[in-house]
C-alpha cells in the first residue's frame, strides 16, 4: 500500500512532538529528526506477530545492503510484556535499531492499522509509503521503493 505525500510537513511536527518519553531503548528516546537526511524504514512489530519472523530477516538484509547508502531501519516493538520481545530478539538478534513502545503512542501517531506495519520516510522526513502486513513475495517491490528513495537527494 502506498501513501504519497499525504502528510507533507506534518510529519516533521509529529516527530518533533516525539514520543521522547514513550519510545526508548534504555534511556535514549527516539528522535526521528536526527535521522533527517536518511531514508527511514520504520517497522512496527510484536513478538506474537508471525509475519514478523519473515520481516526481520528481510529488514536485516536491507540494512546490510543499504545502510552505507543512507538507509536506517528502526523497528518499534509494541509488546505489552518486555520479556516476550526480548525472547524474540534473542532468536533473531538483529543489528538494526530496536525501540520499545508498549503504550502504543508512536503506533497511534502513525495510525498503525494492521500488524506488522511499516512506514517508509524519505530524506526530507516525508512519509512516502505505508505497508500493512508483510509478505515475503513483496520483498522485491519494497526493496525497489527503498532504492528509489535512496537515489533521491
Amino acid at each position, binding site marked *: 500500500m502506498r501513501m504519497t505525500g499525504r502528510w507533507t510537513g506534518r510529519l516533521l511536527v509529529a516527530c518533533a512532538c516525539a514520543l521522547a518519553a514513550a519510545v526508548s531503548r534504555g534511556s535514549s528516546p527516539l528522535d526521528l529528526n536526527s535521522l533527517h537526511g536518511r531514508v527511514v524504514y520504520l517497522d512496527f512489530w510484536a513478538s506474537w506477530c508471525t*509475519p514478523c519472523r519473515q520481516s526481520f530477516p528481510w529488514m536485516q*538484509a536491507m540494512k546490510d545492503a543499504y545502510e552505507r547508502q543512507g538507509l536506517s531501519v528502526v523497528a518499534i516493538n509494541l509488546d505489552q510484556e518486555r520479556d516476550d520481545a526480548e525472547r524474540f530478539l534473542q532468536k533473531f538478534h538483529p543489528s538494526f535499531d530496536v525501540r520499545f513502545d508498549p503504550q502504543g503512542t508512536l503506533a497511534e501517531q502513525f495510525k498503525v492499522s494492521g500488524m506488522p506495519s511499516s512506514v517508509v520516510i524519505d530524506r526530507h522526513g516525508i512519509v512516502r509509503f505505508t505497508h500493512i502486513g508483510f*509478505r*515475503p*513475495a513483496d520483498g522485491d517491490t519494497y526493496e525497489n521503493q527503498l532504492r528509489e528513495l535512496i537515489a533521491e537527494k
Partner: protein
Amino acid sequence: MQLKGRPAVVRRGLIAASCALLGSSGARGQEAVTSGGGAETDGGQIDWLFDSALAYYHENGRVQAIEPVVNIRIDDGVGESINFNLTYDSLSGSSPNGALPSNKPQTFASPSGKSLSAAPHTYTSASGQTSVESAPIYTTSPGQLPVDPKYHDQRLAVGGSWQMPWSRLTRASIGGKVSYEHDFLSLAANASIAHDFNQKNTTLSLGINGEGDAVRPIGGAPLPASDYALFEKTGTKSKNGAGMLLGLTQVMNRRWLSELNLSVDRFTGYLNDPYKIISVIDTIGDTTGYLYEKRPDERTRKSVYLENRVAWSRASAALSLRYMTDDWQIHSDTAQFRVRWWTAGHDQYWEPTVRWYRQTAADFYTPWISSAATPTLLYASADARLGAFNALTYGLKYAFKLEDALDQPGSEFSVRLEYYQQTFFDKMPAPAALQGLDLYPGLRAILLQVGFSY
C-alpha cells in the same frame, strides 16, 4: 489460525510447496536466518503441522470403539493453507435394536438374516445358484434390553480443505470429505468465505455445505413400518442434505472474544435407521411383534450457537451455548464450559470441562406401539437418539508442550478422559406386564484419548 515458525523451504505456490515439502528432508528444525540470503528468496516459508489422536470409547455393557485421527496442515505463512485429515473408527459390541425388554425371551435376526428360525435355509440366487445358510439369530433373556451382541462397524473417512486469501481482509475456503463404511457411503463438500471489518475486530463469515449419502444396509433396507417378521427388505437407499451457516466473530476487548453462529440444514430421503425396530405390545404389555421404524423423509434443523473465550495470564476459559430446533419437534440446549490452567513454566496445562445437554423427543418417538394403534400409525421410532434425555459430560485433559524438547513450536502431548452419561425423562407410563422392567436404561460411557502434535 495457529502458525508455527519452522522455515523449511523458500518457494511460492502450494503445488510447489507440497513438492518442496516432500523433497526437503533435512531442512526442518532450522531457526530463521538472521542475515544475508535475502536476495535469493522469492517467497514465503512453508509450515506444516501434524496433529494426531487415538481415542478409545467404552459404553457400559454396550459398544466400544477405537478411533485414530490424523490431521496434517500445510501453510505458506501468508494466508494460504491446505488440510488433510484421516479418521478411522472401529466399533464393536452390543447395540440396542430399539425393541423393549419383555418378561419372556425374545429372538431376533441379525441384519443379514432373513428369518427368525434357527434352522438352516436354502437360498436360490437370481443366477440359479443355491446356497445353504444358517440364519444368524440372537436371543434376549427375559428382563434384558434387546441388543445385537455382534454389532460391528468400521468407518474410514478422508477429508481435505483449501483456504486461500482473496484480499487482505477476505479469505475463502473449499473442502470435501468421503466417509466409507461397508453399509454406508457419504460424500460431502463445503465452501465458505470470511471478511474482516473494523481493523479485524469483526469477522463475518458465510458457509454452505452439501452431502449425498448412500445407505446400503446389510440384508437390504427394510420397508419402513413393515412387519419385522416378514423381512421385507430391498436394496440401497439414499439421502441428501444441504446447509448454510452465518458467523459473526467479535473481539470484545484484549482478553475476550465472542462468536455467534446461525445455521440451518435440511436433509431429505431415507432417514430411517435400517437396523432399528419397535416393539408392538398388547394392552397388558406383552410383546406381540415388531415393526421396522418409519421416520419422515425430510428434516430441517436450525441452530444458534454462541461462544465466549476469555484469557488471563495463566488461564483461559470458554463457554459455549447452542440451541437447536427442528421440524421433528426436537429442541435441544447445550452448554459447555472449559477452563485451561497453565503451570508456572507455561509448558503444561490442565483443562477440566463440563457439558450439559438436554433434548426433547421427536414427535414420532415412541418406546413401544400398542397393537391397537398400528393401523393408524404414520411415523414411529424407538431409537433412543430421538428420545427425551439429559446428558452430562465431565472431562479432564492434561497436556505438556514438547516445544523445547523437539525444537518445534506447537509440539504437544496430551491425555484426555471424559465421562458421558444420558438419563431419560418424560417417560411414558408402562403397562402392567412391563412394570419393574428398566425401559429407559440410558447410557454411561467413558472416552480416553491420547494426542500428539508436531
